[in-house]
């Protein structure tokens, strides 16, 4: 055997060749380990984003109430992803595509909200979570979502700054408070590098640039992305949405803090009065005495 090896190896001694072999095996083992380690580090470093979705009536819906004006009449109403949430979802998709984030979506609602969740999956979210209860007030919803955030270990939570149905606007703030996470509301721009987020916030008459560490809750709106950036689910995405997980979790016990007593629609517009352009006196008279605007 030795002679054979010597024959084939020429100038190299057997010991030298044996040591090379050991180094080779050590490298293989180490590479495997480092590969595993790298994967684990990468997995850990992959930003985990939760986008909170509200299932709201389409903006063109006819608004009516039932049960003595205490409940919204959903008859014939088409539901969509809350527009402020959709800006957040699109921004999350950019993070996923450019920085390798994992995007989950969550909502509080009964089975009727699932088409809206599936649309989010068709747009590209990886997984959906439905908290199986009918949403009541902002505090209740925030408690439910906070539980999902806590259990899911999310780095970034994006919710719309308000939903366009009841215009609550409380959920992201309460959620951040319950979780002890940083919070930026009315967010119109967001970048994340490592553990640090740079957020642009709309303030009266201008913009504010903030830096915050993750984990972070964002109350997002238009500006995170523009309307033209919103995605139309493509056909393949729609077909794939069927195969993605839509996990249903049971709600935690969390009492509502408010109850809807009554809804009222704005009074119907009265007839328009046209005032002759030369008759400024009559205009002032109407504005002062009738409209009581001046």
């Amino acid at each position: 055997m030795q002679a054979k090896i010597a024959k084939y190896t020429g100038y190299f001694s057997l010991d030298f060749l044996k040591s090379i072999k050991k180094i080779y095996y050590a490298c293989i083992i180490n590479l495997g380990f480092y590969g595993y380690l790298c994967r684990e580090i990468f997995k850990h470093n992959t930003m985990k984003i939760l986008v909170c979705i509200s299932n709201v009536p389409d903006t063109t819906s006819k608004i009516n109430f039932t049960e003595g004006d205490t409940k919204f009449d959903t008859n014939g109403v088409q539901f969509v992803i809350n527009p402020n949430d959709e800006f957040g979802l699109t921004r999350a998709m950019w993070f996923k595509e450019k920085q390798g984030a994992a995007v989950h979506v969550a909502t509080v609602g009964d089975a009727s909200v699932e088409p809206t969740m599936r649309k989010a999956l068709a747009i590209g979210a990886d997984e959906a979570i439905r908290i199986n209860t009918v949403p009541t007030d902002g505090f209740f919803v925030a408690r439910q979502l906070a539980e999902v955030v806590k259990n899911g270990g999310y780095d970034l939570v994006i919710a719309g700054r308000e939903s366009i149905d009841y215009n609550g606007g409380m959920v992201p703030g309460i959620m951040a408070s319950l979780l002890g996470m940083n919070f930026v509301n009315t967010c119109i721009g967001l970048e994340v590098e490592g553990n640090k987020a740079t957020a642009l916030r709309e303030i009266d008459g201008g913009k504010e640039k903030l830096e915050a560490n993750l984990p972070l809750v964002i109350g997002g709106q238009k500006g995170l992305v523009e309307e033209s950036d919103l995605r139309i689910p493509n056909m393949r995405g729609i077909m794939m949405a069927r195969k993605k997980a839509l996990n249903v979790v049971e709600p935690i016990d969390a009492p509502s803090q408010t109850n809807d007593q009554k809804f009222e629609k704005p009074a119907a517009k009265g007839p328009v009065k046209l005032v002759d352009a030369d008759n400024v006196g009559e205009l002032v008279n109407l504005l002062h005495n009738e409209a009581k605007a001046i």
Partner: protein
Amino acid sequence: MSTEIATKEILRGGQFIVKETDCEDVFTPEDFSEEQQMMRESVKEFNDREIVAHRNRFESKDYGYTEECMRKAGELGFLSVAVPEEYEGLGMGFVSTMLVCEYISSGSGSFSTAFGAHTGIGTMPITLYGTEEQKKKYVPKLASGEWFGAYCLTEPGAGSDANSGKTTATLSEDGTHYKINGQKMWISNAGFCKLFIVFARIGDDKNITGFIVENDPENGITLGEEEHKLGIRASSTRQVFFNDTKVPVENMLSERGNGFKIAMNALNVGRIKLAAACLDSQRRVTNYAINYANERQQFKTPIVQFGAIKSKLAEMATNCYAGVSACYRAAKNIEDRIAIRIADGNSHQEAELKGVEEYAVECSILKVAVSEDIQNCSDEGIQIFGGMGFSEETPMESAWRDARIARIYEGTNEINRMLAVGMLVKKAMKGHVDLLGPATAVGEELMGIPSFDTPDFSVLFAEEKDLIARLKKVFLMVAGSAAQKFGAELEQHQQLLTAASDILIEIYMAESTILRTEKNAKRFGEEAQATQIAMAKLYLYNAVELINQKGREGIISFAAGDEQKMMLMGLKRFTKYANYPNVVALRTQIADKIAADNGYTFD
């Protein structure tokens, strides 16, 4: 998409005229799956964002924008819906492909034509007749929108008589390729396509042959200037000239002389898809008209409150509802038939081909009915808009111009009317539909004592369904007697065939409308379907009037003396209501509902 095959026997093509259909056996838009609803929303969003919002670009003949939108449609997967998965398509069922076609088509006739020409007659001849190599080579590119397709059948001297084309294909001496020479015209997508499906004659063959020809200007292919058209202005429509264009022999589609068959079968699919393409246009035009009628005030009153306007709006909505009902009924029949054939061991290709061919009668019926409905709808839409409707500023003007082509392409409505009856008679001769038995029974009934049985009128649609059954007798009486009288000569009597066809069309549309509504009334309640019930009744009333007129016209054209008297008596009996509906009240009910909703909200 998996197709649930009904365990019950599915009605064969054309059989509706002799058989009664249970409402539970028809598919309706209310049966769309959640996935199909999501597809619909996606397509609507694309249409609103990319097509409707840029209507002016289409009207100003921005062909580049049409191409750009086609590319975007490709990115979203809309071009690959009907393409089998093995060729990088989505392999969805026939209903889903109809759905995409319907909702993508309403923003602009220009885009609708480009989409239809590419996905239908530009792609389907290869998926339906191509060899494995041809499909692998070309279909993925067409499905993704990397390449666009066009269909070269029509020539200056060969329109409706498509098999009379003069374009030739000559085999080279070494037998490796054909040289194509000829002129094709009205070629949609010619300006930006990469692939032509070309029909040419080899030698003195009786029938033309299909070829796949890549668009290469270096290979003797030149294009004429863009045609300036009444409508679909941004659909690229040019002449294509082939001058010694070399086509490898392996690019022959199917077999030599099979071109006419390919052309006709591609058109069957094209016809039902064209009908679908006209549906959302009707819905959109109706919506514009309702919105305007609610806003526009004359005599200090919104014009929607005037009976003259209500009547128009109600008819527009009703015809739209009928078109949708009939199209999806037929689409599901086709989908099920394809699934049955696949289950029976047919290849997907063959199953699809035969599945659609089976319902060729219905495809022609739908093409005629819906293309005429969109024309009437946009015409009345202009009328409701008044002077504004005549202006380019409003969408009515372009809708009206765009609608006009639908009565011409995919076989003119005149050809399709005659085809519908002609194909039905052929089916009867092949034994696929038993027309003779029921026609003989009608003949006997004419000579017998009329039945005094009356249905239980308290049951929803009892009277209407009884009437539908009698209207079918009108068709059997007119077409059966005419066929008996003229035999093979029948096809020479085009006016008579056209009248019979109108009867056939109205029966299919009215029955589909009633079946859909009956099914929905059973599951959602009659109260929830009150307006739809009114629309089904109104449609039937109009159908009965027309059938009366066409039946009379037909009978008088070929029958005389006692025979004529007997048939006219039969016609009267078969088209008689026991309780006439108050159509003014029906129209008012429908118009009031859509005015209150400020839109057409029925599907």
